[in-house]
């Protein structure tokens, strides 16, 4: 609601322009590798923007997931593409001409312009002040079991969304596996720098994850950020040359993968059997339950993200039985 003083105005317009420019560059640059690097930069600028918008929780998630993991995923994918020596189309503009076709190609742009105009008008016409649900959140924060309102929303007020969300993550991994994953890659042994980095950073990341998990109760942080950090540790290990053994996705790994979702389901069942509403915690147990749920979720998210980066279908033993 603050009107802009000059410094803020300069900062905001620079950030805004920067975001749009980076996005455009990422989508338009002729080389894919450049596009990805720019996209990572875009993610970092997004993180900065989140901080500017008083959304430190999101900034953390963005750095870890949006810029970090997504960037790693994109780079890894590009590397595999190149390794597979597929003909990557150099240009996105296909050699197909004719005046009518060219005119037709302007159609999306025109359409987009119209949609944009409508949206801009709608955004500008929104009421200048709207408290949303902040009043309700504040009023009930005391009985939610945590002090960070975002965590309270995520795991208590709208814990059901999070329940489904965790399954989306698991689903992505199941989907990757059902595709048959990728054929095992020959990875060159990591250089000494990367190796040392991995050895040093992995414990740090694990500690950081634990911190995020703990901090999420009071301030910025929580299961998603913690899980993403764990996932980053997993990615780092893989970059350093570590491969999951053949037992990956056998029972104990599977157990970690489902720990988060399963805990959620168990708590949900428990609340129902106890005659409460779904995921309705008694205020005195809320804090403990949330921490329990978050711990499970952190582990699962971390392992799932690492598994998604791995991309190969583990030997899960399905091929052998029956």
């Amino acid at each position, binding site marked *: 609601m603050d009107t802009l003083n000059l410094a803020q105005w300069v900062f905001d317009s620079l950030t805004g322009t920067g975001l749009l420019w980076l996005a455009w560059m990422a989508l338009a640059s002729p080389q894919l590798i450049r596009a990805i690097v720019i996209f990572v930069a875009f993610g970092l600028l997004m993180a900065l923007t989140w901080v500017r918008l008083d959304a430190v929780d999101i900034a953390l998630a963005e750095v870890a997931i949006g810029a970090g993991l997504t960037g790693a995923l994109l780079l890894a994918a590009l590397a595999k593409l190149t390794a597979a020596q597929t003909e990557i189309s150099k240009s996105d503009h296909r050699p197909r001409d004719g005046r009518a076709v060219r005119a037709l190609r302007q159609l999306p742009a025109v359409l987009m312009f119209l949609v944009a105009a409508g949206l801009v008008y709608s955004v500008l016409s*929104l009421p200048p002040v709207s408290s949303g649900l902040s009043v309700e959140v504040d009023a009930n924060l005391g009985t939610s079991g945590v002090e960070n309102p975002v965590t309270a929303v995520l795991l208590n007020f709208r814990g059901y969304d999070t329940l489904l969300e965790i399954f989306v993550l698991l689903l992505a991994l199941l989907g990757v596996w059902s595709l048959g994953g990728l054929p095992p890659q020959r990875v060159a042994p990591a250089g000494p720098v990367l190796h040392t980095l991995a050895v040093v950073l992995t414990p740090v990341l694990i500690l950081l994850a634990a911190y995020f998990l703990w901090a999420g109760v009071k301030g910025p942080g929580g299961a998603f950020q913690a899980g993403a950090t764990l996932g980053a540790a997993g990615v780092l290990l893989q970059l350093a040359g570590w491969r999951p053994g053949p037992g990956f996705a056998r029972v104990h790994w599977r157990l970690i993968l489902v720990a988060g979702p399963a805990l959620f389901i168990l708590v949900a069942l428990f609340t129902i059997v106890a005659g409460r509403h779904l995921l309705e915690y008694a205020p005195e147990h809320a804090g403990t339950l949330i921490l329990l749920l978050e711990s499970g979720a952190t582990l699962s998210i971390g392992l799932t993200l690492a598994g998604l980066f791995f991309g190969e279908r583990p030997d899960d033993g399905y091929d052998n039985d029956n």
Partner: protein
Amino acid sequence: MEVIITTFPWGVVLILVPLFGALSCFMWPNVARYLALSTAFALVMSVIALAVRLITTGSYRHEIGGWGAPLGIELFADGLSLLMLAATAVVGFAVTVYSIGYFPNRQLLRFLPIWFLLLAALNALFLSGDIFNLYVALELTGLAAVALTAMSGGRAALIAAMRYLFATLVGSMSYLLGVVLIYHSFGSLDFMILAERVEASPATWSALGLMSIGLALKTALFPLHFWLPPAHASAPAPVSAALSGLVVKASFYILLRLWLEVFPAGHSLIPGEFLGALGVCAIFWGGLQALRATRLKLLIAYSTVMQVGYFFLVFPLATVVAWHGVLFLLLSHALAKAAMFLAAGNIIYFAGHDRIVDFDRIAQQLPMTLAAFALAGVCIMGLPPGGGFIAKWLMVQASLESGQWWWAAALILGSLVAAAYVFKVVGHSFTQTTVREKTNVVPVLMEWTALALALASVLLGLVASWPLAWMEIGGVFAGVPAR
């Protein structure tokens, strides 16, 4: 006992059971098929219990976390959700049973967890009373559907899945932006609260436009249907059955809810006539493409494009009778289309291909499968006693009552086209030839499943008064003109 049935939150069970099923099938692959059957059976039982509850005590809301709207999320079960949940449970059960015969063990173990996540997502979607929660459920549905589409790993399937993924992503993003505008205009995500607060404004128009387009894309309304035929034609047959039978309806269901409850008439920049006109285009485009198709699964997929067109006729008609008709169509189409795809699956399993001209060699060996296809076809083309007949009757009645005879004309012409493509297939199955190809023995259970679904879709017309009465639970049509 009765108290338990009428007070227990069965809707929650419908969400938790398949989630649990997914996890347990993933954890214990050795017993996955038994877990799968029990899960599917439990779903059917829970829907029956929910139906008993709703019929005896009316619609109900369940405040998740005990917070209640606007802070928390509420589940909402009324006649409309019951109808969709019932279709999901029945088709879900059939597909589960069928898949156990259809997939080799290795594929089955990968299929089952994703499949139950899809069922959970659908159930969650049909029960949700919160527009953001619907987004999450939509994403879960979409991702599961894409993953299942790509399962076979063939070239066509992978490409189709990729297209499908982009379509579903754009659809959900568009929907989500609509949710954002709504939330920031009216400060709530709950259907009931929004229904009271929503008023006309540029943001409302944009939101409704974004949400409608996003959902129409996911429902594959012409001309946004491009992704559907390849996806539904190249997915494994049980998956196609679920995609055409259930998934397409999920996004349409949200659209119905939005139009019925959140946005009263006049708040839309998209007139119902426009959606209806697109529906008519879908009917004829889908119908003609189905007529041209030489592969059975592609034919069935285009038939879905066509049927989706019928759904959208409800927007210009917008009377209680029209709503009844379209909802009944949703139900009967779910059963019939699933039956058709399962029948197609049997044929592919048997012969290794689904070229329609070669059916004479197949039909003689698989009479039950062809019977299933033909019966489901009766329902699809709207002939009695199929459920499609009742739906067609109600929709024609609605259009004649409101004086908009042209929709009725489109409906009737469309059903003639449908008859043409159904009989194109059936006609080939009576000609006599000897089997030449190498064939596989189709498990009896697969044939029976397809036939049972087809029979259900046909007999639905005879018990139409029940679902039509259930639709009224909760008074969802209270604001809709009678004629």
